Protein backbone atom coordinates (compact mmCIF):
# COMPACT_ATOMS: atom_id res chain seq x y z
CA UNK A 1 0.00 0.00 0.00
CA UNK A 2 2.62 2.49 1.07
CA UNK A 3 4.59 1.55 -2.03
CA UNK A 4 1.86 3.14 -4.11
CA UNK A 5 1.49 6.10 -1.81
CA UNK A 6 5.18 7.01 -1.76
CA UNK A 7 5.70 8.21 -5.36
CA UNK A 8 2.52 10.27 -5.10
CA UNK A 9 4.07 12.46 -2.41
CA UNK A 10 4.91 15.79 -3.99
CA UNK A 11 8.54 16.88 -4.19
CA UNK A 12 9.38 19.02 -1.22
CA UNK A 13 6.22 18.10 0.66
CA UNK A 14 5.87 19.50 4.13
CA UNK A 15 6.91 16.31 5.83
CA UNK A 16 10.54 16.70 4.77
CA UNK A 17 12.73 17.00 7.80
CA UNK A 18 14.72 20.18 8.02
CA UNK A 19 14.10 22.06 4.82
CA UNK A 20 10.37 22.16 4.20
CA UNK A 21 8.94 25.14 2.33
CA UNK A 22 8.83 28.04 4.72
CA UNK A 23 5.94 30.43 4.75
CA UNK A 24 7.07 33.72 3.27
CA UNK A 25 9.77 32.36 0.99
CA UNK A 26 9.11 33.52 -2.56
CA UNK A 27 8.61 30.51 -4.87
CA UNK A 28 11.72 31.23 -6.94
CA UNK A 29 13.90 31.43 -3.85
CA UNK A 30 12.39 28.24 -2.48
CA UNK A 31 13.15 26.49 -5.77
CA UNK A 32 16.74 27.67 -5.57
CA UNK A 33 16.97 26.35 -2.00
CA UNK A 34 15.70 22.96 -3.09
CA UNK A 35 18.09 22.83 -6.03
CA UNK A 36 21.05 23.75 -3.79
CA UNK A 37 21.23 20.12 -2.67
CA UNK A 38 22.43 18.91 -6.06
CA UNK A 39 24.98 21.69 -6.60
CA UNK A 40 28.04 19.66 -5.45
CA UNK A 41 27.23 16.89 -7.92
CA UNK A 42 26.79 19.24 -10.87
CA UNK A 43 29.90 21.19 -9.86
CA UNK A 44 31.96 17.99 -9.93
CA UNK A 45 30.52 17.03 -13.33
CA UNK A 46 31.36 20.50 -14.62
CA UNK A 47 34.93 20.37 -13.29
CA UNK A 48 35.90 16.92 -14.47
CA UNK A 49 33.64 16.37 -17.48
CA UNK A 50 32.46 19.75 -18.76
CA UNK A 51 35.67 21.77 -18.58
CA UNK A 52 37.89 19.02 -20.06
CA UNK A 53 35.40 18.64 -22.94
CA UNK A 54 35.43 22.41 -23.47
CA UNK A 55 39.25 22.39 -23.42
CA UNK A 56 39.27 19.78 -26.19
CA UNK A 57 36.84 21.81 -28.28
CA UNK A 58 39.02 24.89 -27.77
CA UNK A 59 42.23 23.06 -28.64
CA UNK A 60 40.69 21.59 -31.77
CA UNK A 61 40.54 25.09 -33.28
CA UNK A 62 43.98 26.18 -32.14
CA UNK A 63 47.24 26.23 -34.06
CA UNK A 64 49.71 24.31 -31.84
CA UNK A 65 52.63 26.67 -32.64
CA UNK A 66 51.09 30.12 -32.74
CA UNK A 67 47.97 29.59 -30.63
CA UNK A 68 45.94 31.27 -33.36
CA UNK A 69 42.48 30.18 -34.45
CA UNK A 70 42.63 27.66 -37.30
CA UNK A 71 40.47 25.13 -39.09
CA UNK A 72 43.40 23.03 -40.29
CA UNK A 73 43.10 20.51 -37.39
CA UNK A 74 39.48 19.91 -38.29
CA UNK A 75 40.49 19.66 -41.97
CA UNK A 76 43.06 16.96 -41.21
CA UNK A 77 40.79 15.12 -38.78
CA UNK A 78 37.96 14.77 -41.28
CA UNK A 79 40.04 13.52 -44.21
CA UNK A 80 42.21 10.57 -45.23
CA UNK A 81 43.17 8.03 -42.59
CA UNK A 82 41.26 9.87 -39.87
CA UNK A 83 37.98 9.85 -41.79
CA UNK A 84 38.63 6.18 -42.51
CA UNK A 85 39.18 5.69 -38.75
CA UNK A 86 35.80 7.23 -37.93
CA UNK A 87 34.09 5.00 -40.48
CA UNK A 88 35.76 1.80 -39.24
CA UNK A 89 34.99 2.76 -35.62
CA UNK A 90 31.35 3.36 -36.53
CA UNK A 91 31.15 0.02 -38.36
CA UNK A 92 32.66 -1.87 -35.43
CA UNK A 93 30.41 -0.03 -32.97
CA UNK A 94 27.23 -0.81 -34.90
CA UNK A 95 28.10 -4.52 -35.07
CA UNK A 96 29.06 -4.66 -31.40
CA UNK A 97 25.92 -2.80 -30.36
CA UNK A 98 23.33 -4.77 -32.33
CA UNK A 99 24.68 -8.31 -31.83
CA UNK A 100 25.28 -8.14 -28.05
CA UNK A 101 22.13 -6.05 -27.75
CA UNK A 102 19.96 -8.84 -29.11
CA UNK A 103 21.88 -11.59 -27.33
CA UNK A 104 21.86 -9.60 -24.07
CA UNK A 105 18.12 -9.07 -24.35
CA UNK A 106 17.47 -12.81 -24.39
CA UNK A 107 20.09 -13.57 -21.75
CA UNK A 108 18.73 -10.78 -19.57
CA UNK A 109 15.21 -12.16 -19.89
CA UNK A 110 16.40 -15.67 -19.07
CA UNK A 111 18.08 -14.29 -15.94
CA UNK A 112 15.08 -12.14 -15.07
CA UNK A 113 12.70 -15.09 -15.16
CA UNK A 114 14.97 -17.32 -13.12
CA UNK A 115 13.55 -17.99 -9.68
CA UNK A 116 13.91 -14.95 -7.46
CA UNK A 117 16.93 -15.19 -5.23
CA UNK A 118 18.17 -18.23 -7.14
CA UNK A 119 21.91 -18.73 -7.05
CA UNK A 120 21.96 -18.73 -10.85
CA UNK A 121 20.49 -15.25 -10.94
CA UNK A 122 22.92 -13.90 -8.37
CA UNK A 123 25.91 -15.45 -10.13
CA UNK A 124 24.81 -14.09 -13.50
CA UNK A 125 24.17 -10.55 -12.28
CA UNK A 126 27.36 -10.21 -10.24
CA UNK A 127 29.39 -11.75 -13.05
CA UNK A 128 27.88 -9.17 -15.40
CA UNK A 129 29.03 -6.41 -13.08
CA UNK A 130 32.58 -7.70 -13.12
CA UNK A 131 32.84 -8.64 -16.81
CA UNK A 132 31.34 -5.35 -18.00
CA UNK A 133 34.45 -3.70 -16.53
CA UNK A 134 36.89 -6.24 -17.94
CA UNK A 135 39.01 -5.29 -20.92
CA UNK A 136 42.39 -4.35 -22.29
CA UNK A 137 45.40 -6.61 -22.48
CA UNK A 138 44.04 -9.27 -20.08
CA UNK A 139 40.90 -9.66 -22.19
CA UNK A 140 42.87 -9.73 -25.43
CA UNK A 141 45.04 -12.40 -23.88
CA UNK A 142 42.06 -14.55 -22.88
CA UNK A 143 41.03 -14.71 -26.51
CA UNK A 144 44.52 -15.23 -27.88
CA UNK A 145 44.75 -18.27 -25.59
CA UNK A 146 41.34 -19.44 -26.84
CA UNK A 147 41.03 -18.54 -30.50
CA UNK A 148 44.55 -17.46 -31.45
CA UNK A 149 46.28 -19.59 -34.11
CA UNK A 150 47.36 -22.07 -31.41
CA UNK A 151 44.54 -21.40 -28.94
CA UNK A 152 42.61 -24.12 -27.16
CA UNK A 153 39.33 -23.71 -29.03
CA UNK A 154 41.20 -23.47 -32.34
CA UNK A 155 42.86 -26.82 -31.62
CA UNK A 156 39.55 -28.41 -30.56
CA UNK A 157 37.84 -27.20 -33.70
CA UNK A 158 40.76 -28.35 -35.87
CA UNK A 159 40.57 -31.78 -34.23
CA UNK A 160 36.95 -32.16 -35.33
CA UNK A 161 37.90 -31.09 -38.86
CA UNK A 162 37.06 -27.39 -38.80
CA UNK A 163 40.07 -25.12 -38.71
CA UNK A 164 38.59 -21.64 -38.22
CA UNK A 165 41.62 -19.95 -39.78
CA UNK A 166 41.15 -21.93 -43.00
CA UNK A 167 37.52 -20.87 -43.07
CA UNK A 168 37.95 -17.14 -43.09
CA UNK A 169 38.15 -16.47 -39.35
CA UNK A 170 40.84 -14.15 -38.02
CA UNK A 171 41.03 -13.02 -34.41
CA UNK A 172 43.04 -9.96 -35.41
CA UNK A 173 40.66 -8.43 -37.95
CA UNK A 174 37.44 -6.49 -37.43
CA UNK A 175 35.30 -9.62 -37.00
CA UNK A 176 37.71 -11.01 -34.41
CA UNK A 177 37.75 -7.75 -32.44
CA UNK A 178 33.94 -7.71 -32.55
CA UNK A 179 33.85 -11.24 -31.11
CA UNK A 180 36.13 -10.13 -28.26
CA UNK A 181 34.02 -7.01 -27.60
CA UNK A 182 31.03 -9.27 -26.90
CA UNK A 183 32.86 -10.29 -23.73
CA UNK A 184 32.17 -6.95 -22.08
CA UNK A 185 29.27 -5.73 -24.23
CA UNK A 186 26.89 -8.62 -23.41
CA UNK A 187 27.30 -8.21 -19.62
CA UNK A 188 26.83 -4.46 -20.01
CA UNK A 189 23.61 -5.07 -21.94
CA UNK A 190 22.38 -7.46 -19.24
CA UNK A 191 23.05 -4.85 -16.55
CA UNK A 192 21.28 -2.01 -18.31
CA UNK A 193 18.29 -3.95 -19.71
CA UNK A 194 17.35 -5.73 -16.45
CA UNK A 195 15.70 -2.65 -14.89
CA UNK A 196 13.49 -2.41 -17.98
CA UNK A 197 12.20 -5.97 -17.46
CA UNK A 198 11.31 -4.96 -13.92
CA UNK A 199 8.86 -2.48 -15.38
CA UNK A 200 6.82 -5.19 -17.11
CA UNK A 201 4.00 -5.72 -14.63
CA UNK A 202 2.86 -9.32 -14.18
CA UNK A 203 -0.69 -7.93 -14.14
CA UNK A 204 -0.42 -6.99 -17.83
CA UNK A 205 0.52 -10.51 -18.73
CA UNK A 206 -2.34 -11.91 -16.71
CA UNK A 207 -4.79 -9.46 -18.26
CA UNK A 208 -3.59 -10.48 -21.74
CA UNK A 209 -3.96 -14.16 -20.87
CA UNK A 210 -7.45 -13.59 -19.50
CA UNK A 211 -8.40 -12.07 -22.81
CA UNK A 212 -7.03 -15.12 -24.58
CA UNK A 213 -3.70 -13.80 -25.83
CA UNK A 214 -0.94 -16.32 -26.40
CA UNK A 215 2.75 -15.76 -25.62
CA UNK A 216 3.48 -14.43 -29.10
CA UNK A 217 0.54 -12.05 -29.02
CA UNK A 218 1.57 -10.79 -25.59
CA UNK A 219 5.07 -9.92 -26.79
CA UNK A 220 3.88 -8.59 -30.12
CA UNK A 221 1.21 -6.27 -28.67
CA UNK A 222 2.26 -5.48 -25.10
CA UNK A 223 5.69 -6.58 -23.96
CA UNK A 224 7.49 -5.62 -27.17
CA UNK A 225 6.12 -2.09 -27.54
CA UNK A 226 6.70 -1.35 -23.84
CA UNK A 227 10.28 -2.60 -23.95
CA UNK A 228 11.17 -1.11 -27.33
CA UNK A 229 12.25 2.41 -26.22
CA UNK A 230 14.41 0.96 -23.41
CA UNK A 231 15.90 -1.58 -25.79
CA UNK A 232 16.80 1.08 -28.37
CA UNK A 233 18.23 3.26 -25.60
CA UNK A 234 20.42 0.36 -24.47
CA UNK A 235 21.60 -0.15 -28.06
CA UNK A 236 22.73 3.48 -28.15
CA UNK A 237 24.68 2.99 -24.92
CA UNK A 238 26.29 -0.16 -26.29
CA UNK A 239 27.24 1.77 -29.41
CA UNK A 240 28.84 4.44 -27.25
CA UNK A 241 30.64 1.88 -25.12
CA UNK A 242 32.13 0.16 -28.18
CA UNK A 243 32.86 3.53 -29.73
CA UNK A 244 34.93 4.62 -26.75
CA UNK A 245 36.75 1.31 -26.13
CA UNK A 246 40.46 1.68 -26.60
CA UNK A 247 42.65 -0.70 -24.65
CA UNK A 248 41.17 -3.96 -25.95
CA UNK A 249 41.47 -3.19 -29.64
CA UNK A 250 44.90 -1.65 -29.11
CA UNK A 251 46.13 -4.78 -27.31
CA UNK A 252 44.62 -7.18 -29.83
CA UNK A 253 45.64 -5.56 -33.09
CA UNK A 254 48.51 -3.30 -31.95
CA UNK A 255 47.02 -0.55 -34.11
CA UNK A 256 46.55 -2.44 -37.40
CA UNK A 257 42.85 -1.55 -37.36
CA UNK A 258 42.65 2.25 -37.56
CA UNK A 259 40.15 3.07 -34.79
CA UNK A 260 39.70 6.71 -33.82
CA UNK A 261 40.35 6.07 -30.12
CA UNK A 262 43.68 4.42 -30.99
CA UNK A 263 44.60 7.32 -33.25
CA UNK A 264 43.94 9.77 -30.40
CA UNK A 265 46.03 7.62 -28.09
CA UNK A 266 48.96 7.75 -30.49
CA UNK A 267 48.81 11.56 -30.42
CA UNK A 268 49.08 11.43 -26.63
CA UNK A 269 52.01 9.05 -26.86
CA UNK A 270 53.82 11.65 -28.95
CA UNK A 271 53.79 9.94 -32.37
CA UNK A 272 52.90 13.14 -34.16
CA UNK A 273 54.06 15.14 -37.14
CA UNK A 274 55.12 18.70 -36.38
CA UNK A 275 52.20 21.12 -36.56
CA UNK A 276 49.62 18.37 -36.08
CA UNK A 277 49.70 18.15 -32.26
CA UNK A 278 46.14 19.41 -32.02
CA UNK A 279 44.65 17.02 -34.59
CA UNK A 280 44.13 14.59 -31.70
CA UNK A 281 41.90 17.17 -30.04
CA UNK A 282 39.95 17.66 -33.26
CA UNK A 283 39.42 13.89 -33.37
CA UNK A 284 38.32 14.00 -29.73
CA UNK A 285 35.88 16.79 -30.54
CA UNK A 286 34.49 14.66 -33.37
CA UNK A 287 33.91 11.76 -30.99
CA UNK A 288 32.29 14.01 -28.40
CA UNK A 289 29.94 15.46 -31.03
CA UNK A 290 28.89 12.00 -32.22
CA UNK A 291 28.28 10.99 -28.59
CA UNK A 292 26.28 14.18 -28.03
CA UNK A 293 23.94 13.35 -30.92
CA UNK A 294 23.63 9.85 -29.52
CA UNK A 295 22.68 11.14 -26.08
CA UNK A 296 19.97 13.41 -27.48
CA UNK A 297 18.32 10.35 -29.01
CA UNK A 298 18.90 8.46 -25.77
CA UNK A 299 17.14 11.15 -23.74
CA UNK A 300 14.18 11.09 -26.15
CA UNK A 301 13.93 7.30 -25.88
CA UNK A 302 14.18 7.51 -22.07
CA UNK A 303 11.23 9.88 -22.03
CA UNK A 304 9.19 7.46 -24.12
CA UNK A 305 10.22 4.53 -21.97
CA UNK A 306 9.16 6.42 -18.84
CA UNK A 307 5.57 6.49 -20.04
CA UNK A 308 5.16 2.84 -19.07
CA UNK A 309 8.03 1.95 -16.83
CA UNK A 310 7.46 3.11 -13.26
Amino acid at each position, binding site marked *: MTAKAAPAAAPGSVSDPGAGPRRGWPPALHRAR*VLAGVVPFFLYILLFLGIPAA*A*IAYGAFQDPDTGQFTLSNIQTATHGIYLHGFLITAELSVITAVVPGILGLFIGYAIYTARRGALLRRIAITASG*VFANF*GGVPLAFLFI*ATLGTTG*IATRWLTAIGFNPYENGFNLYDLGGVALVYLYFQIPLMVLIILPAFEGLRPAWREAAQNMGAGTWQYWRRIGGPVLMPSFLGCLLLLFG*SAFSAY*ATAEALTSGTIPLTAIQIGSFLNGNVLAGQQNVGKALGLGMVLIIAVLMVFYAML*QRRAARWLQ
Partner: protein
Amino acid sequence: MAAVIGDELAGEAVPPRPHRKRRSYPVWRWIILVLTAVYFLIPLYAALRFAGIASFGQVVHQTGFSDALILSLKLAVITTVLTMALMVPTTIYVHLRLPGLRRLLESITILPIVIPPVVLIVGVLQVAPGYLKSTPYLLGLVYVILAMPFAYRSLDAGLRALELRTLVDAASSLGAGWLSTLWRVILPNLRTALLSATVLTVALVLGEFTMASLDLYQTFPVWIVAFDQTSGPVSTAASLLALFVTWLFLLLIVTVGSRRARRTGGAQVDLISVTRRDTVR
Protein backbone atom coordinates in the same frame (compact mmCIF):
# COMPACT_ATOMS: atom_id res chain seq x y z
CA MET B 1 -22.95 -11.58 -0.10
CA ALA B 2 -20.37 -9.68 -1.96
CA ALA B 3 -17.76 -10.96 0.43
CA VAL B 4 -18.81 -14.54 -0.21
CA ILE B 5 -18.61 -14.13 -3.96
CA GLY B 6 -15.26 -12.45 -3.54
CA ASP B 7 -14.05 -15.39 -1.52
CA GLU B 8 -15.31 -17.87 -4.06
CA LEU B 9 -13.61 -16.01 -6.85
CA ALA B 10 -10.44 -15.90 -4.85
CA GLY B 11 -10.83 -19.57 -4.13
CA GLU B 12 -11.04 -20.29 -7.81
CA ALA B 13 -8.16 -18.06 -8.69
CA VAL B 14 -5.79 -19.61 -6.21
CA PRO B 15 -5.44 -23.26 -7.30
CA PRO B 16 -3.66 -22.63 -10.65
CA ARG B 17 -1.04 -20.55 -8.84
CA PRO B 18 1.13 -23.32 -7.41
CA HIS B 19 1.07 -24.89 -10.86
CA ARG B 20 2.34 -21.79 -12.51
CA LYS B 21 4.93 -21.32 -9.82
CA ARG B 22 6.36 -24.72 -10.59
CA ARG B 23 6.11 -24.09 -14.33
CA SER B 24 9.17 -25.75 -15.77
CA TYR B 25 11.91 -23.42 -16.87
CA PRO B 26 11.55 -23.52 -20.68
CA VAL B 27 14.20 -25.31 -22.68
CA TRP B 28 15.19 -22.31 -24.80
CA ARG B 29 16.26 -20.45 -21.69
CA TRP B 30 18.54 -23.28 -20.65
CA ILE B 31 20.06 -23.38 -24.14
CA ILE B 32 20.75 -19.64 -24.03
CA LEU B 33 22.30 -19.82 -20.57
CA VAL B 34 24.47 -22.80 -21.46
CA LEU B 35 25.73 -21.19 -24.68
CA THR B 36 26.49 -18.00 -22.77
CA ALA B 37 28.34 -19.94 -20.11
CA VAL B 38 30.40 -21.67 -22.82
CA TYR B 39 31.33 -18.36 -24.44
CA PHE B 40 32.36 -16.83 -21.10
CA LEU B 41 34.02 -19.83 -19.47
CA ILE B 42 36.18 -21.28 -22.27
CA PRO B 43 38.44 -18.19 -22.52
CA LEU B 44 38.84 -18.24 -18.72
CA TYR B 45 39.74 -21.92 -18.84
CA ALA B 46 42.21 -21.29 -21.68
CA ALA B 47 43.90 -18.53 -19.70
CA LEU B 48 43.99 -20.66 -16.55
CA ARG B 49 45.67 -23.49 -18.46
CA PHE B 50 48.19 -21.08 -19.93
CA ALA B 51 49.01 -19.48 -16.58
CA GLY B 52 49.31 -22.78 -14.69
CA ILE B 53 48.55 -23.17 -11.02
CA ALA B 54 52.12 -22.41 -9.94
CA SER B 55 52.05 -18.87 -11.35
CA PHE B 56 49.35 -17.86 -8.90
CA GLY B 57 51.75 -18.37 -6.01
CA GLN B 58 54.49 -16.40 -7.73
CA VAL B 59 52.44 -13.29 -8.50
CA VAL B 60 53.06 -11.71 -5.11
CA HIS B 61 56.85 -11.97 -5.33
CA GLN B 62 57.36 -10.19 -8.64
CA THR B 63 59.25 -6.91 -8.89
CA GLY B 64 56.97 -3.92 -9.03
CA PHE B 65 53.90 -5.93 -8.03
CA SER B 66 53.49 -4.49 -4.55
CA ASP B 67 54.24 -0.88 -5.59
CA ALA B 68 51.69 -1.07 -8.40
CA LEU B 69 49.07 -2.76 -6.22
CA ILE B 70 49.57 -0.26 -3.39
CA LEU B 71 49.19 2.67 -5.78
CA SER B 72 46.03 1.12 -7.22
CA LEU B 73 44.63 0.45 -3.75
CA LYS B 74 45.31 4.06 -2.68
CA LEU B 75 43.52 5.26 -5.81
CA ALA B 76 40.68 2.85 -5.05
CA VAL B 77 40.28 4.30 -1.55
CA ILE B 78 40.33 7.91 -2.80
CA THR B 79 37.89 7.15 -5.59
CA THR B 80 35.49 5.19 -3.40
CA VAL B 81 35.43 7.78 -0.60
CA LEU B 82 34.87 10.65 -3.03
CA THR B 83 32.28 8.76 -5.07
CA MET B 84 30.28 7.83 -1.99
CA ALA B 85 30.56 11.30 -0.45
CA LEU B 86 29.26 12.79 -3.67
CA MET B 87 26.74 10.22 -4.90
CA VAL B 88 25.06 8.97 -1.70
CA PRO B 89 23.74 12.35 -0.50
CA THR B 90 22.90 13.44 -4.05
CA THR B 91 20.95 10.27 -4.88
CA ILE B 92 19.02 10.28 -1.59
CA TYR B 93 18.30 13.99 -1.92
CA VAL B 94 17.02 13.59 -5.48
CA HIS B 95 14.83 10.65 -4.49
CA LEU B 96 13.27 12.61 -1.64
CA ARG B 97 12.99 16.15 -2.85
CA LEU B 98 13.61 16.31 -6.59
CA PRO B 99 12.20 13.11 -8.11
CA GLY B 100 11.77 15.04 -11.34
CA LEU B 101 15.55 15.19 -11.66
CA ARG B 102 15.99 11.42 -11.52
CA ARG B 103 15.86 10.98 -15.26
CA LEU B 104 18.34 13.82 -15.84
CA LEU B 105 20.70 12.30 -13.28
CA GLU B 106 20.36 8.93 -14.95
CA SER B 107 21.30 10.42 -18.32
CA ILE B 108 24.26 12.36 -16.90
CA THR B 109 25.67 9.45 -14.94
CA ILE B 110 25.51 7.23 -18.04
CA LEU B 111 27.81 9.65 -19.92
CA PRO B 112 31.11 8.13 -18.70
CA ILE B 113 30.17 4.83 -20.39
CA VAL B 114 29.94 6.52 -23.77
CA ILE B 115 32.57 9.27 -23.50
CA PRO B 116 35.90 7.80 -24.59
CA PRO B 117 38.37 7.74 -21.68
CA VAL B 118 41.06 8.63 -24.20
CA VAL B 119 39.27 11.90 -24.96
CA LEU B 120 38.53 12.65 -21.32
CA ILE B 121 42.15 12.22 -20.22
CA VAL B 122 43.37 14.47 -23.06
CA GLY B 123 41.05 17.20 -21.82
CA VAL B 124 41.88 16.66 -18.16
CA LEU B 125 45.63 16.75 -18.76
CA GLN B 126 45.21 19.96 -20.71
CA VAL B 127 43.38 21.89 -18.01
CA ALA B 128 44.65 20.33 -14.76
CA PRO B 129 46.96 22.61 -12.78
CA GLY B 130 50.59 21.50 -12.47
CA TYR B 131 50.46 20.42 -8.84
CA LEU B 132 47.66 17.98 -9.66
CA LYS B 133 49.30 16.69 -12.82
CA SER B 134 52.46 15.78 -10.93
CA THR B 135 50.62 13.33 -8.62
CA PRO B 136 48.92 10.08 -9.54
CA TYR B 137 45.97 11.15 -7.39
CA LEU B 138 44.60 13.22 -10.26
CA LEU B 139 43.59 9.82 -11.64
CA GLY B 140 41.50 9.20 -8.52
CA LEU B 141 39.60 12.44 -9.09
CA VAL B 142 38.81 11.45 -12.69
CA TYR B 143 37.93 7.87 -11.73
CA VAL B 144 35.07 9.31 -9.65
CA ILE B 145 33.50 10.30 -12.97
CA LEU B 146 34.11 6.84 -14.47
CA ALA B 147 32.62 5.16 -11.38
CA MET B 148 29.36 7.13 -11.55
CA PRO B 149 27.36 4.91 -13.96
CA PHE B 150 27.59 1.84 -11.77
CA ALA B 151 27.64 3.60 -8.41
CA TYR B 152 24.54 5.64 -9.25
CA ARG B 153 22.68 2.64 -10.60
CA SER B 154 23.24 0.43 -7.60
CA LEU B 155 22.41 3.24 -5.15
CA ASP B 156 19.29 4.07 -7.14
CA ALA B 157 18.21 0.41 -7.10
CA GLY B 158 18.82 0.28 -3.35
CA LEU B 159 16.69 3.37 -2.77
CA ARG B 160 13.90 2.14 -5.02
CA ALA B 161 13.69 -0.99 -2.87
CA LEU B 162 13.12 1.07 0.30
CA GLU B 163 10.00 2.79 1.48
CA LEU B 164 12.18 5.85 1.70
CA ARG B 165 9.41 8.38 2.26
CA THR B 166 7.89 6.27 5.03
CA LEU B 167 11.25 5.79 6.72
CA VAL B 168 12.05 9.50 6.63
CA ASP B 169 8.60 10.50 7.84
CA ALA B 170 8.77 8.00 10.66
CA ALA B 171 12.21 9.21 11.67
CA SER B 172 11.23 12.87 11.60
CA SER B 173 8.03 12.26 13.56
CA LEU B 174 10.20 10.63 16.20
CA GLY B 175 12.20 13.82 16.30
CA ALA B 176 15.28 12.78 14.34
CA GLY B 177 17.19 15.49 12.49
CA TRP B 178 18.53 15.19 8.96
CA LEU B 179 21.92 13.80 9.90
CA SER B 180 20.61 11.28 12.31
CA THR B 181 17.95 10.12 9.82
CA LEU B 182 20.64 9.68 7.19
CA TRP B 183 23.14 7.99 9.46
CA ARG B 184 20.90 5.82 11.60
CA VAL B 185 17.95 5.05 9.31
CA ILE B 186 18.75 5.36 5.61
CA LEU B 187 22.37 4.21 5.42
CA PRO B 188 21.88 1.00 7.45
CA ASN B 189 19.01 0.09 5.12
CA LEU B 190 21.18 0.82 2.11
CA ARG B 191 24.03 -1.40 3.25
CA THR B 192 23.85 -3.85 0.35
CA ALA B 193 23.62 -1.10 -2.25
CA LEU B 194 26.54 0.74 -0.64
CA LEU B 195 28.67 -2.38 -0.62
CA SER B 196 27.84 -3.21 -4.24
CA ALA B 197 28.64 0.33 -5.32
CA THR B 198 31.93 0.12 -3.43
CA VAL B 199 32.97 -3.17 -4.98
CA LEU B 200 32.04 -2.03 -8.48
CA THR B 201 34.06 1.17 -7.94
CA VAL B 202 37.06 -0.75 -6.65
CA ALA B 203 36.79 -3.19 -9.57
CA LEU B 204 36.81 -0.27 -11.96
CA VAL B 205 39.89 1.33 -10.40
CA LEU B 206 41.76 -1.97 -10.24
CA GLY B 207 41.04 -2.58 -13.93
CA GLU B 208 41.32 0.88 -15.51
CA PHE B 209 44.17 0.86 -17.99
CA THR B 210 43.61 3.54 -20.64
CA MET B 211 43.85 6.66 -18.49
CA ALA B 212 46.54 5.39 -16.16
CA SER B 213 48.83 4.38 -19.01
CA LEU B 214 48.32 7.67 -20.88
CA ASP B 215 48.93 9.60 -17.65
CA LEU B 216 52.15 7.54 -17.32
CA TYR B 217 51.60 6.06 -13.86
CA GLN B 218 52.20 2.39 -13.16
CA THR B 219 48.96 1.26 -11.57
CA PHE B 220 48.12 -2.42 -11.19
CA PRO B 221 46.68 -2.94 -14.71
CA VAL B 222 49.54 -0.99 -16.27
CA TRP B 223 51.98 -3.19 -14.34
CA ILE B 224 50.19 -6.33 -15.57
CA VAL B 225 50.69 -5.22 -19.16
CA ALA B 226 54.32 -4.18 -18.61
CA PHE B 227 55.10 -7.41 -16.78
CA ASP B 228 53.64 -9.41 -19.64
CA GLN B 229 56.97 -8.81 -21.40
CA THR B 230 58.81 -10.53 -18.52
CA SER B 231 56.51 -13.44 -17.84
CA GLY B 232 53.23 -14.02 -19.67
CA PRO B 233 51.90 -16.72 -17.33
CA VAL B 234 52.45 -14.69 -14.15
CA SER B 235 50.89 -11.59 -15.68
CA THR B 236 47.88 -13.63 -16.79
CA ALA B 237 47.58 -15.18 -13.34
CA ALA B 238 47.57 -11.68 -11.80
CA SER B 239 44.70 -10.48 -13.98
CA LEU B 240 42.67 -13.66 -13.40
CA LEU B 241 43.24 -13.30 -9.66
CA ALA B 242 41.93 -9.72 -9.70
CA LEU B 243 38.88 -10.83 -11.68
CA PHE B 244 37.97 -13.74 -9.41
CA VAL B 245 38.54 -11.88 -6.15
CA THR B 246 36.30 -9.00 -7.23
CA TRP B 247 33.59 -11.32 -8.43
CA LEU B 248 33.62 -13.41 -5.24
CA PHE B 249 33.30 -10.25 -3.15
CA LEU B 250 30.31 -9.07 -5.16
CA LEU B 251 28.64 -12.46 -4.97
CA LEU B 252 29.19 -12.58 -1.21
CA ILE B 253 27.69 -9.12 -0.70
CA VAL B 254 24.63 -9.83 -2.82
CA THR B 255 24.08 -13.21 -1.14
CA VAL B 256 24.29 -11.78 2.37
CA GLY B 257 22.07 -8.89 1.28
CA SER B 258 19.35 -11.18 -0.04
CA ARG B 259 19.42 -13.27 3.14
CA ARG B 260 18.80 -10.10 5.07
CA ALA B 261 16.01 -9.07 2.68
CA ARG B 262 14.31 -12.43 3.09
CA ARG B 263 14.54 -12.17 6.86
CA THR B 264 13.22 -8.64 7.10
CA GLY B 265 10.70 -9.00 4.28
CA GLY B 266 12.10 -6.14 2.25
CA ALA B 267 12.51 -5.95 -1.49
CA GLN B 268 15.49 -7.75 -2.88
CA VAL B 269 18.27 -5.86 -4.62
CA ASP B 270 20.53 -7.69 -7.03
CA LEU B 271 23.25 -5.17 -7.72
CA ILE B 272 21.20 -2.92 -9.98
CA SER B 273 17.78 -4.51 -10.17
CA VAL B 274 15.05 -4.59 -7.57
CA THR B 275 12.57 -7.38 -7.02
CA ARG B 276 9.67 -6.28 -4.90
CA ARG B 277 7.79 -8.81 -2.83
CA ASP B 278 4.42 -7.71 -4.12
CA THR B 279 5.17 -7.68 -7.83
CA VAL B 280 6.65 -11.13 -8.16
CA ARG B 281 4.87 -14.37 -7.67
